[in-house]
Each structure stands twice: as structure tokens, then as C-alpha cells.
């Protein structure tokens, strides 16, 4: 709950006004039966003036109850929606300080469940507090006092009653709270499964594995159902249980009054009010109990939000460092790296240096660590040991803005977002002019297909970019990467889905038009990096060779092996 306090503070005025409206509407609720009773008595006593006066008061009370009731809803809604949306915003902002590893640890599905479903629970909780919880204790305490005052002799009956109901309540709340944890866990699981299915729908269908998917989900769903039923059983027990307890206590008290009625004949008149007070008490306890339940469910959700808030991002930038772009040089000094949850190092003692404007190729087998190396340059992770410098600055000391301005990283798997093509390209440079869009698209060989759309750059990219081919996605992703003119450009096998001709064109254009940009090309094809100033050869996490194409052909067995698999069948002159 502590986490919510600062948010409530932001809505101090609304909280204050809500409390006032609650007091007034509680007054209206409590006063009204009394007033009505009064009017009835006056009617029977034929006091016309008093009847007219109290009827007018009754009308006033009705209007007051309408006005304060509506205002209560208004202010309570303002608080609820304000607090929840602020909290959701801060939570999302916090997530955006996470490193990639942090996000993966939570999983994106779980994060979105927290931001939507858990927030919903928190919202219900706040609403309950401001529309019910505050009012109910007043009524509860009032009815307890009145019950005891009515027959002071049997004060212990009220205590027994309260103790029994509370006991039942505590046990039930404990059980139910424990199950809410499990409930959220299964919700996550189902959400995860569904997300996975949506991602892999083509695989599922082409392997005819819908039955398997359904069986897996049904299993989770049944488990969730079990939890739901258990929670429901507890709920179904509480009310009748409490009812039974109250009725038995009432019967007991009435019995005791009966046995001693000759000593206390005036007790006859208190039976009815006593019963009414006990039933009001029961009603208030149940409502408080419901509210407590709602709050405990909200608390589980709050804990899940707290988890996000408490997570320390494992990559932290130096905000005090200047925001200006760094230079284009890259230096690896004895860098080794193991993934946070991995056991084996993926990179082992890598050292090399790249001068600004150089073009460097990185080749090696699958899993040799090429992409990991590139991710370290973009500081998606920090090296486990060793140091990386860009433009002479240690990466751990730079400002994030500076690094993002410096390094542009085009990923192997092109990810585009819904929005227009222009929106996506402008992610590389917010204020890019249409000339800049055009130029970047041209360099990435994307102009041609963009121009074929009627809306050109305003063409919409669909969900999962289903309306674009792999090659088109990669071109757009490259255009987005180069539009800002960053000093360092990393292309992580990002032309793999391009046809040969376009790939060659992209490379030639980049070489020609970005002479000052340091270009890191991770490539599967030797042709792509043959002209590089330097080629790094990785093998099982080690840097085994470094040099130009010609040098490596002579000296590096690993490089020779790769080359052999890519040689044309024919000699050039045979064609």
C-alpha cells in the first residue's frame, strides 16, 4: 500500500472532498431511518405541523443524499483513475529503464498482464476504499455499541459473535489470499501460451498441432478453474457461515431473555431492535470483509507492481556525462561475456580496435558470438569482464543519449511497429524531413517498393508487419538505422532476406555515401565483407583471426573453411 501513498498525495483535494461527501452521505443513510420513524410516530399522534416539517426535511435529505452521492462518485472516480493511470505510467516508464535482460526475466507477456490486469485489480481496490470501505466501519462500530447498550447483560454474546465471525473471516481471507497468488500465476501462464500461439500460428497450423496446443491450454485453464472454484467455495462458506453464527447467537440471547423474563419483564421490547442491530452488524462485517478481500487481491497486484519498481536495471548509464555524440572509434579490451542466466561464456577475451570510418566485417559460425559482440557495442548488456570504449570513452561512463546518437544498430530480425512507414523511419530521427526519409530509403534500396504504394511513406505497417516481405522489412529497418547519420553503424546480418542484387547495391551505397561512418557488418556471406578494411573471424567465442580478405585467405584456416563453402562452381571466365 505504501507505494500508493505518494499518488494519493497528488490528489489531496479530491481525497478531501471524497471524505466530506462520504460523511454527508453516511449521515443521510444513518439519519433517514430515524427521521422516517419520527414521521410515522408524528402521523400516528396526528401532529400535522411536525409531519409537514419532517417531510420537508426528508425531501432535503433526499436531495442531499443525491448530491453528495453523485459528488462522491465523481471525486472517487477522479482519484481512482488518476492514481491508477499515474501508477501505470510510472511503471511503464520504469520498465523503459530496464535492460533487455531485465525485460526478458519478467517476460513481455507478464509485464503486459501487470500493466493491464493487475492495474485493474488495483483500480477496483481503490474504488472500494473510497466508495465503501470508509463508510462501513462507522456503521459497524455504531451497531456494535447499540447492540451492547440494548441489553448490557449479554455483552459477552456480542463478543462471542464477533470473535467467531472474525475467526472464520481470518481463516477464509488467508486461504483466499494465498489462492490469488496462484490465480495470477495461472493467468500469466495462459497469457503466455496464447501469446506464444499468436506468434507461432503458422507453425501450429502447418504441423496440424492445434490439438496439442488446445490440450496444453486446457490443462492450464483447468488448473486456473480449480483455483477459481476453491476461491468460490470459500466465498460461499463465509456468508452462510456468518449468518448461521449470528442466528444461533440471536436465538441463544432470545432464549436467555425468555428464561429470565420474569425478573426483567421490560426485556420484551428490546428483542426486535437487538435482532436488527445484530443483523446490521453482520451486514457491515460482510461488506468490510468483501472490501478486505478486494484489497487483498489488490495487494497481490500491488506486490507485482512493486516487483517492477524494485528491480534495479542491470545496465545503468551515467546521466551526468555529456549528451553529445561520441567519436566513431571502437575498442575492446580483453572482453569476456556470459549471459545473466547462462553458464558458459559466449565471448572469451576479445580485444581489437576499430578506427573511425573503417569498415569491419565479422564472420564466424552460428553461435560463435557475432551478434553478442554487436549487442555489447550497443550496450544491451555489459561485459562480464573487460572494457569497451567508444570514441575513447568507457561505455560504463557514457550518457545513454550520447551512446544512442553514436551507435545505430540494425538487428538481424527486423522489427517494425504499427504506424506508417514514415513513422517507423522517423524512429531513427524524430524530426527527419521528407528529403531525409527519401534519401535513407534510397540508400536502403527501399524507395522502389515504397513508391509503388499510393500513399508512399504514409503506407500503414500492419501488426507483425504482415503486409511486408522479409526483405522489405529489412530495408526499412536499415533505412531507419542510417537516417540519423550516426558515427557507428552496425548491420547484424541485416541484409539476409534481401535478394543478392539489392544487397550488393545497399552495400555499395553505404560504402560510397557514408565514408565517415564506422561500419560493422556481421555477415554470413564473405562477398559482403570482402572489401572491408578489416575482417574479424570468431570461432566459439574467441577472436581467432583479424585482417583483410587477402591476408585471412592465406593465414586463417577457419576463414578458408567459410570461404570454401561460398565459392562459385565455375571460375569467372567460364561464365
Amino acid at each position, binding site marked *: 500500500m505504501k507505494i500508493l501513498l505518494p499518488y494519493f498525495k497528488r490528489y489531496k483535494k479530491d481525497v478531501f472532498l471524497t471524505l466530506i461527501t462520504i460523511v454527508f452521505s453516511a449521515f443521510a443513510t444513518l439519519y433517514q431511518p430515524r427521521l422516517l420513524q419520527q414521521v410515522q410516530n408524528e402521523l400516528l399522534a396526528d401532529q400535522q405541523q411536525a409531519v409537514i416539517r419532517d417531510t420537508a426535511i426528508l425531501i432535503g435529505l433526499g436531495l442531499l*443524499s443525491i448530491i453528495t452521492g453523485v459528488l462522491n462518485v465523481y471525486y472517487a472516480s477522479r482519484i481512482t483513475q488518476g492514481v491508477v493511470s499515474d501508477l501505470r505510467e510510472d511503471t511503464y516508464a520504469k520498465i523503459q529503464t530496464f535492460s533487455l535482460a531485465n525485460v526478458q526475466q519478467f517476460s513481455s507477456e507478464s509485464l503486459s498482464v501487470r500493466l493491464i490486469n493487475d492495474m485493474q485489480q488495483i483500480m477496483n481496490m481503490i474504488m472500494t476504499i473510497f466508495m465503501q470501505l470508509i463508510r462501513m466501519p462507522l456503521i459497524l462500530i455504531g451497531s456494535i455499541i447499540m447492540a451492547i447498550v440494548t441489553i448490557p447483560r449479554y455483552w459477552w454474546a456480542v463478543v462471542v459473535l464477533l470473535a467467531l465471525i472474525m475467526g472464520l473471516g481470518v481463516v477464509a481471507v488467508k486461504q483466499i489470499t494465498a489462492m490469488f497468488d496462484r490465480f495470477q500465476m495461472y493467468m500469466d501462464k495462459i497469457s503466455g501460451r496464447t501469446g506464444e500461439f499468436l506468434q507461432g500460428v503458422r507453425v501450429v497450423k502447418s504441423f496440424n498441432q492445434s490439438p496439442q496446443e488446445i490440450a496444453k491450454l486446457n490443462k492450464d485453464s483447468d488448473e486456473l478453474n480449480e483455483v477459481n472454484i476453491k476461491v468460490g467455495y470459500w466465498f*460461499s462458506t463465509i456468508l452462510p457461515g456468518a449468518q448461521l453464527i449470528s442466528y444461533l447467537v440471536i436465538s441463544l440471547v432470545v432464549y436467555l431473555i425468555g428464561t429470565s423474563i420474569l425478573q426483567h419483564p421490560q426485556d420484551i421490547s428490546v428483542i426486535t431492535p437487538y435482532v436488527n442491530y445484530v443483523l446490521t452488524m453482520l451486514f457491515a462485517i460482510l461488506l468490510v470483509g468483501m472490501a478486505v478481500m478486494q484489497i487483498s487481491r489488490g495487494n497481490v497486484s500491488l506486490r507485482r507492481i512493486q516487483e517492477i519498481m524494485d528491480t534495479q536495471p542491470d545496465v545503468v548509464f551515467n546521466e551526468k556525462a555529456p549528451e553529445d555524440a561520441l567519436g566513431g572509434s571502437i575498442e575492446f579490451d580483453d572482453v569476456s561475456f556470459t549471459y545473466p542466466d547462462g553458464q558458459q561464456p559466449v565471448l572469451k577475451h576479445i580485444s581489437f580496435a576499430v578506427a573511425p570510418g573503417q569498415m569491419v566485417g565479422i564472420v564466424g*559460425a552460428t553461435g560463435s558470438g557475432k551478434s553478442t559482440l554487436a549487442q555489447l557495442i550497443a550496450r544491451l548488456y555489459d561485459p562480464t569482464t573487460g572494457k569497451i570504449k567508444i570514441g575513447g570513452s568507457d561505455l560504463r561512463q557514457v550518457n545513454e543519449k550520447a551512446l544512442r546518437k553514436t551507435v545505430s544498430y540494425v538487428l538481424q530480425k527486423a522489427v517494425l511497429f504499427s504506424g506508417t512507414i514514415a513513422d517507423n523511419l522517423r524512429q531513427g530521427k524524430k524530426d527527419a524531413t521528407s528529403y531525409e526519409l527519401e534519401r535513407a530509403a534510397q540508400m536502403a534500396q527501399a524507395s522502389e517498393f515504397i513508391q509503388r504504394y499510393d500513399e508512399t511513406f504514409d503506407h500503414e505497417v500492419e501488426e507483425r508487419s504482415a503486409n511486408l516481405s522479409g526483405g522489405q522489412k529489412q530495408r526499412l529497418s536499415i533505412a531507419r538505422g542510417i537516417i540519423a547519420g550516426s558515427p557507428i553503424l552496425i548491420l547484424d546480418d541485416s541484409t539476409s532476406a534481401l535478394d543478392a542484387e539489392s544487397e550488393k547495391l545497399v552495400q555499395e551505397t553505404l560504402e560510397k555515401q557514408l565514408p565517415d561512418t564506422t561500419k560493422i557488418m556481421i555477415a554470413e556471406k564473405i562477398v559482403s565483407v570482402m572489401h572491408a578494411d578489416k575482417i574479424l573471424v570468431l570461432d566459439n567465442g574467441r577472436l581467432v583471426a583479424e585482417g583483410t580478405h587477402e591476408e585471412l585467405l592465406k593465414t586463417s584456416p577457419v576463414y578458408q573453411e567459410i570461404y570454401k563453402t561460398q565459392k562459385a562452381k565455375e571460375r569467372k571466365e567460364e561464365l
Partner: protein
Amino acid sequence: MSDKQKSLTYLTKYLKNYKKPILISVAFYLIVTIAQVIAPSLLGQTVTNLSAFVKGHGSLGVFYQALAWMAGFYAFNSVATYIAWMMMTRFNANANNDMRKGLFGKLQRMTIRYFDTHQDGQILSLFNSDLDNIFNALNNAFFEIISQSLLFVGTIIVMFVINWKLALSVVATTPLILLLSWIIMKKAHVYLDNQQDRVGELNAYINEQLNGENVIITQGLRDQSVAGFKKENAKVREAMFKGQFYSGILNPLVSGFSLLNFAIVIATGAYMIMTKQVSQAAGLGLIVTFTEYSWTYFQPLTQVTSIYSMLQLALTGARRLETVEEQEEENTVPDGKTISGVNDAVRLEDVHFGYTPDKEILHGVSIEVPKGQSVAVVGPTGSGKTTIMNLINRFYDVNSGAVTFDGVDVRDLKLENLRSNVGIVLQDSVLFSGTVADNIRYGKPEASMDEVIAAAKEAQLHDFVMTLPEQYDTPIENGQDNFSTGQKQLLSIARTILVDPAFLILDEATSNVDTVTEEKIQKAMDNVIAGRTSFVIAHRLKTILNSDKIVVLKDGQVIEEGPHADLIKKRGFYYQLYTSQMAFE
């Protein structure tokens, strides 16, 4: 169908399997409601007996008897409530479970087109939000509505039997209240609907952003992402505020009106006494009685309005779910023909196709893949290569022309039969949570461990798997960072090898695997391809050099066709591709 009808259709569909428990629990609850009305009179009886005893007209025995009746009645009431609730809990949870399973099952049967045109997050919020809303509403509102409407009708009847004039005064404001409620509910309905839509949009936004988090980070888009979130979030806030407000004010309005109604009843009664319609004594008694009735009459109205927003959200949820249930399903061609393997050829015959009616992508493509041969398709980006795969496997259907297996149109084949004959290695490899072994045997869950290992070996994945902490039992979780893209692809190849399909489609499968591995895969694939009919969509020319036939696709048309050597001689488009891509000595 109107929105309301849709919601009701949906709820009826899933609740009708529970007719018996619903009827029984409702019967119990009716008893409970009646018992609640009678219980006070039993208490009154007890008090009367006791006061009779005090005045000396009776014995304590009669009082004890009445007390025992009362206690017994109370106990019976509690037990009946307990039984009714237990039953309701069960059928409600089970119905909700059916809905969840039904939704997932429905998703499984829907067309690829639906998934390509709907955001994942929108679909997920059906699970995360809408199903939950229905569950809550049924849990909290189901009995409430039944018992309150019973009370409502009962009160009206009793009132009119006693005195119709005063009864009219009690119900006089009802039309006004109903009109007011109707106006507010209409507004609330719009805003609550709007609220769910906005939440769906926010969910979609979060999903897309977090799934592309690596791009967000590396492009320095975090501030922008937060700004975009704020925009969506503000819309949710606005919509939710309005929804909560309009659905929330109904209750205080109605309960306020119930107070005003007392004044009307009193005034009417007074008027009746003044005009001598009733005697003063009788009139006063009537007024007292009818103020009580006015109270019970309004009780159901205020109760129902307090759960209104819950009900409305549930109806909205039901409508959204019904909309999904109405979606077109894949035609599984249940009484279609079946084939086992390819005996003659797989053909595309003058195929025209576009994802949208206004934009054709393939313009009359004809390709023949004879039995046992390997045909490769190459061509520039956007030429329609991947689309062909979508058509062969019937993810989409041709606009005109046909795709045939041994002369049988794929649309005439049982869908399952078609897909079990076609194996696909997709462009993007997807791993499912489960172990590595589970993933390899994904297409054939009953496969033995030996088969799994054999497939992994053939796909050159075995050595890598052995380096994992728990080898084949290593769990794969979300994120899957143990696997590089290339390794994922090897796994997806192993998966396809294991099911041993008659017809194989490799959709740019080798594009993300490095060349050393590619060479190994090529060998493995050569083995797999041998004796199998296959169709390779690739741009790594080296991998398709030995294909029996290479088809060059450009702008949705076949422009060249033939074996490698022939195409080289032709000095056309293929020649250019080849010379620009391969390394020459």
C-alpha cells in the same frame, strides 16, 4: 445482430450446458428469498408468545417451541444459501473455463488472415480482461438479480392488493426514474464499451513495444515509447473515468429518489384523509405501512443499479467474445479427398492472388514440382516467393487458378491431410515453451527420444544441444536467449525432419544460418530432399545450385525457369544474380 443479442447469444451458449445446476441453485435461492421474507414474522411470533407468558396467558413451553422453530428456520436458511452458492460457484467457474477453452479452440480454427490483420494484444485482452469481467458479474450479480426481481414483483402485488391508490403513489416516480436511468445507462454503456476498446488498444501498444524492446533500446526510443504510452494511457484514463462516473451515479440517484418518494407517499396519504377517502385511523396506519413498502420497493432498484457497471462490462465482454466466435473459420474440408504422398507432381496452375482484393501480387504463376524433384524459387524481394508457400499450405486461397497435388485441387483435400503431407521450415523460427526435446517433437508429440536425437543430428543441432545444461531436457522459456537465430532455425529444421513430410517447403530457411552450418544443413537437406518432392524459397544461391529446376520470380511473374547451367547460359536475370552474389577466384 444487435450488440445485446450478441452478448445474450454468447452467454446462453455457454450457460445452457449447466441447466440442471442452474435450475437447482435458483430453486434453492428462491426458497432462501421467501424464507428471508417470512423469518421476521417468526421472530414476531416468538415475541408475542413471550409477552403472552409475561401477561400470564401462556406457558414458557409455547415460547420455547416458537423459538426452536425460528432457530431451525434460520439454520435451514443458512444451509440452503450455502448449497445454492456452492452450486453457483461451480457452474459459473466451469462455464468460464468453457469460455476460455472455447475461445482458444476458436482461435485455433481461425484463418491466418485474421491473425495477420489483428493485433496480438487485442486478442490477449479477451483472455485477460473480458473473460474475467463475465466471471465477476456472474458471481456477484446472478442471484442478486433473481432475488431482487422476486422481491420487486412481490412488493408491487402486495401493495396493489392493500390499497391501489397509495400503491400508485409509490410507483408514481418509477417512470421518471426509469427514464433517467435509461439515459444514464445509455451513456454509461457507450463509455464502458469505449473503455474496453481503449484498454485493448493500450494492451496492444504495450505488447508491440515490449516485444520490440531491443529496437526501442538500440534506437534510443525509450522516451518516445513512454510518450506514446502516455498518450494511450490518457485515453484509457479519460474513458475509464467517464465509464466509472456514469455507471456509478445510478446508485446514489436511485437511493436518493427513494427518500423523495417517502414524501410523496406521505402527502398522498394525507390528501386521502383530508378528502375523507379513508378514516383517519385507517389512513395513518396505511401511510406507515406504505412508507415501509416504499422502502422494500426501492431496495431492488438500488441494488441492481449498484451492480450495473459490472453487468455492463460483462455484456461488453460477451459481445466482444461473440464477435470472435462469429469469425470465419478455416474450411477443414471434412469430407474432402485424401492423398498419401506425391505420386505425380505438385503444381501451381495460372495462379492469381492478392492479400487484398485491390492489389494482386501473383499474376498468373504456373510452376510444376514433379515427384522426387527439388524446385527452387529465386527472385527479388517482394516478388511473391513467400506468398506461394502461403498458398500451397492453404494459409490463403488463390483468387483464380489452382494449386494441385497429383491433379487434385488443394481446396478439395482434407485440410489436415494436406498439411500433414506438407512440411514447412518457416522464415521466422518460433520456439514454444517446453523442453528442447518437446520442441523438436512438436509436430509428432509421440516421437521417441531416439527419433528426436536422430532428427537433431540430421539437422546438425545435436552437438549444440549437448552443450546445454540439461541437454534435451533444457527448458525453453520466453525470450529464448539460449538460442541464436541460426540455432532456432536448426531446431525448426529438426522439427520438420522428424515429421518426415512427403512434400517439403523451405521458406528462406537457410538465410539466417551461417555458411559453415549451411553447408552441413545442405548435406542434411540433400538427404532429406532425396526421394522427396521439395520446394525451396531461397536467395542463398549456393544452396539451390543442385536443384532440379530453378524458377525465377519477378513482380509476381515467372520470368526464367530451368536448371542452373541452362539459366547461366541464358545470361538473363539469374546470371546477374549469380555473378553478383558468389565469390569467384
